[in-house]
């Protein structure tokens, strides 16, 4: 499924330095769908303290860098997720929690749940576990930070490059006549 090798899209030069700062202050917009949302409060508060890494919850996609999908995605919420993802600003990353976004999880055969999130929006990191515990989430965050630091977390570039492919998948699922997306590619 890797359409393009991340090496070609790797950040170089000045971006490399900025990545250090992007890594140190990741602002997270957690899209609480499914069962993963309950895992986040402990990671944020004093027990697992996400703030140590400079990460904090943000109210609007405009301000956030990191989109956290915390569970299965039905068709209706997929449309909302794509809309929110579009509103976020580059460089932006997506972390998918739990197994449902990977292969539909226990709802793989349901009529409304989508089986593979990566088809619709580029997922940088998936944290397995039918709702991973906060330690796993923190572990995932640290892994993402390392990826950002050496410039490999380039999901947003992939989305820009082959936007048509993603668009096609999204339309096939959502089958809406009028376009969902904002005027970006018009």
């Amino acid at each position, binding site marked *: 499924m890797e359409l393009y090798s991340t090496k070609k899209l790797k950040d170089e030069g000045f971006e490399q330095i900025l990545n250090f700062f992007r890594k140190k*202050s990741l602002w997270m917009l957690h899209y609480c769908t499914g069962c993963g949302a309950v895992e986040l409060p402990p990671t944020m508060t004093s027990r697992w*303290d996400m703030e140590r890494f400079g990460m904090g919850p943000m109210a609007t996609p405009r301000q956030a860098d990191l989109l956290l999908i915390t569970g299965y995605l039905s068709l209706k919420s997929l449309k909302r997720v794509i809309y929110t993802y579009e509103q976020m600003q580059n460089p932006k990353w997506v972390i998918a929690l739990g197994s449902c976004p990977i292969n539909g999880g226990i709802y793989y055969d349901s009529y409304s749940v989508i089986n593979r999130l990566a088809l619709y929006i580029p997922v940088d990191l998936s944290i397995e576990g039918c709702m991973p515990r906060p330690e796993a989430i923190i572990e995932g965050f640290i892994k993402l930070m390392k990826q950002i630091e050496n410039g490999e977390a380039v999901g947003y570039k992939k989305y820009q490059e082959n936007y048509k492919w993603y668009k096609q998948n999204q339309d096939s699922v959502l089958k809406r006549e009028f376009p969902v997306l904002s005027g970006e590619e018009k």
Partner: protein
Amino acid sequence: MMNNYIVRFLIGSLTSIILGLLYMGIGRKFIARIRRCYAGPFYQSFIDVIKLFSKHSISHHWIMDFGIMMGFSGIIATVIFLPIGNFYVFPDMKGNLIIIMYFMTIGYLGMAMGVSASGNPNSPIGIGRALALMIGYEIPFALAVILLIFANGSSLLYNIIQTQQGSIYNWNLLKYPFAFIGTIIALQGMLGEQPFDAMIAPAEIASGPMVELSGKFLGFGFLQHASQIFLETGIITAMFLGGGTIIGFFTKQLFLYLLTLSIASVFPRFRFEDGVKFFWTIPTSFVLFQLILFLIKR
């Protein structure tokens, strides 16, 4: 003479930004400590600002850019008139209080204009709340200013500071304790801290005015908030704590900021009209009581 002013200007504005961010970092660690967790390093705000400036951003109209820039420049222009320790950017206008009070409104107007041009309904609601609160906390603050101007016969901060030199006993804090308490509560509103942060309530109106600010605009918001902290605490230190030498000045500012944060981390959020009612009753009565005492004594 020209470059002398530019140099002074740069010193004044950069100190305010840097120190403002520093105070925010320390403040975040302080609140984290209250919540028994270890927030990021004290230079966390610097990182956030640099990250924000490195992100792409969107704007709905050139008015939005102009407005945000105007907001930030308004606050910086106000800091210019603030006496930082005993350093003044404009030597012949040593910190005129009335100018400072009116220049602050440019910051609000610029930010408000930029944000309301963004078209998101949440931001004007936030701005409406902020302005209503402003009329609330301006009253005790204005009363305190009037009291001090009457006390020292001049509206220059320089003279106010001069009267407070010497030992700790002739600080205005001790001369007019009630006025100080009223102003501290007003400071809480000015900084938009917890009990009075109905305007940027993340839960209710998705962080109010900052809804549409992305990337560098949010960076401007951050810098504005930082220099605002520096400004307001600086005014109150000059008015009540007798702003001493550079270091003394900064420590007093930090002390004030941490005082407000400690109040903030304990209180839930006021509805903004209750906040205005609160401001018009309790802090105003404190300062009024002090003013009446002063008038009787004179």
